[in-house]
């Protein structure tokens, strides 16, 4: 059964990079490069300096979009995992694996930029606030997802196992958030300043950041999927030999 499934995708794998795919990838790359340049310019010159926090607040234009991408990436893993288990189509496994890798990169960025801001503003690098705790757990769950993939050499089995973990991990996140909130409910101090009364320039810059990072995500995802297809083609060549 395993060889049969592999063979059925052999034609698809023989041409790992169509012209159209290459064009789309270049398009995402170009859009990401332009929008990230615009974001940097806006973050430093358009958005006003925060009266209380000073220049360090500008790290939010990277921090918040990274968090958004981290979450989006793992939602994609979840949907692609369900799609893989339902259809058995290899492209969903490639999508899930690629998205998980990119998601871990952005979640790492969140966990680095957060403390850089937290130290000068809160006076501490880390606190067990529900959002921070949830992101740390999200990061750990998807690191274990990548470790699991590394431990299963057979492609079909790897795809199935990681799909199950992709589903369980994502469903776990809201429960983690809930438990982290109750866990620290005895601490009434709410550190994070909520949006709402943000100056419009800050809000616009943040939104540009979200768009720019979405392009960057799509670009990295498409590059990573190409690598996945090339690797699958190499694995297939190995099997055929």
């Amino acid at each position, binding site marked *: 059964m395993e060889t049969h499934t592999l063979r059925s995708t052999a034609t698809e794998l023989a041409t790992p990079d169509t012209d159209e795919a290459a064009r789309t990838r270049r398009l995402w790359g170009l859009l990401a490069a332009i929008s990230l340049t615009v974001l940097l310019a806006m973050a430093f010159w358009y958005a006003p300096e925060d009266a209380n926090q000073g220049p360090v607040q500008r790290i939010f234009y990277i921090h918040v979009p990274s968090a958004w991408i981290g979450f989006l990436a793992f939602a994609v893993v979840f949907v692609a995992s369900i799609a893989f288990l339902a259809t058995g189509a290899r492209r969903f496994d490639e999508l899930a694996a690629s998205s998980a890798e990119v998601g871990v990169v952005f979640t790492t960025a969140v966990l680095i930029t957060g403390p850089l801001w937290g130290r000068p503003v809160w006076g501490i690098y880390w606190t067990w606030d529900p959002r921070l705790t949830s992101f740390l757990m999200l990061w*750990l769950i998807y690191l274990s997802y990548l470790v699991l993939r590394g431990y299963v050499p057979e492609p079909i089995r790897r795809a199935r196992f990681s799909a199950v973990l992709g589903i369980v991990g994502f469903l776990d996140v809201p429960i983690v958030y809930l438990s982290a909130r109750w866990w620290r409910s005895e601490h009434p101090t709410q550190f994070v300043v909520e949006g709402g009364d943000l100056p419009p320039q800050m809000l616009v810059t943040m939104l540009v950041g979200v768009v720019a990072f979405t392009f960057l995500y799509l670009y990295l995802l498409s590059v990573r999927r190409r690598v996945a297809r090339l690797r699958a083609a190499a694995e297939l060549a190995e099997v055929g030999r």
Partner: protein
Amino acid sequence: MSWLGPALAIAGKDLRLETKTRDVVASVGLFVLLVVVTASFAFPTAGAGREGVAAGVLWMAFLFAALLGMGRSMAIEKEDACLEGLLVSPAPREAVFLGKLLTNLGFTFAVEVVILPLFIVLLQLRPGGGLGLLVLDALLGTLGLVTVGTLFAAMAVNTRGREAILPLLVMPVSVPVMVAAVKVAEAGFAGGMGEGTLSWLLLMVGYDALFLLVALATFHHVTEE
């Protein structure tokens, strides 16, 4: 119920094997006892607020018991292609999952039943009326750990890492259940239901129910060849 018969047969087989060899419960039980004793030296388990520390130590010990027991019970199936035999048998996959779940619950409870009273005596805790709550906590918390763990153990034995990878898969996902179980145990050691204890119990019930359904729905994917 077409699942129950095969599930009980699988769990019964593991139980008979265990009563003959006493491999799992004896070694895991001794290990967990060592964890408890070592932790008693390592943490401030005397004085004010020791219920909180004790609750944490207890659940670390229970987590180790569950992880080791599950790893062993699935490793048994890998010997002499037992698992393949189970999977080609007419028993539905859900029944195989439930059978192994029962085995793992049995192994872990067997250890917990011995450890909990010893723990209360060694750490000079006075749960009083909180004892019932502690038992309920052990049941709900262990069910959560073992539900996710049984699903992941079936995956872990088929990786290059074998049982070594099981904790890496189980521990991140089971954090909510650990947090809840520790909070309830703290209330139990302090004498009974406290503020918020009910919410924690409900969180465990929800977690257990959700992942039991997910595990039943996905188990056949991790055992297909």
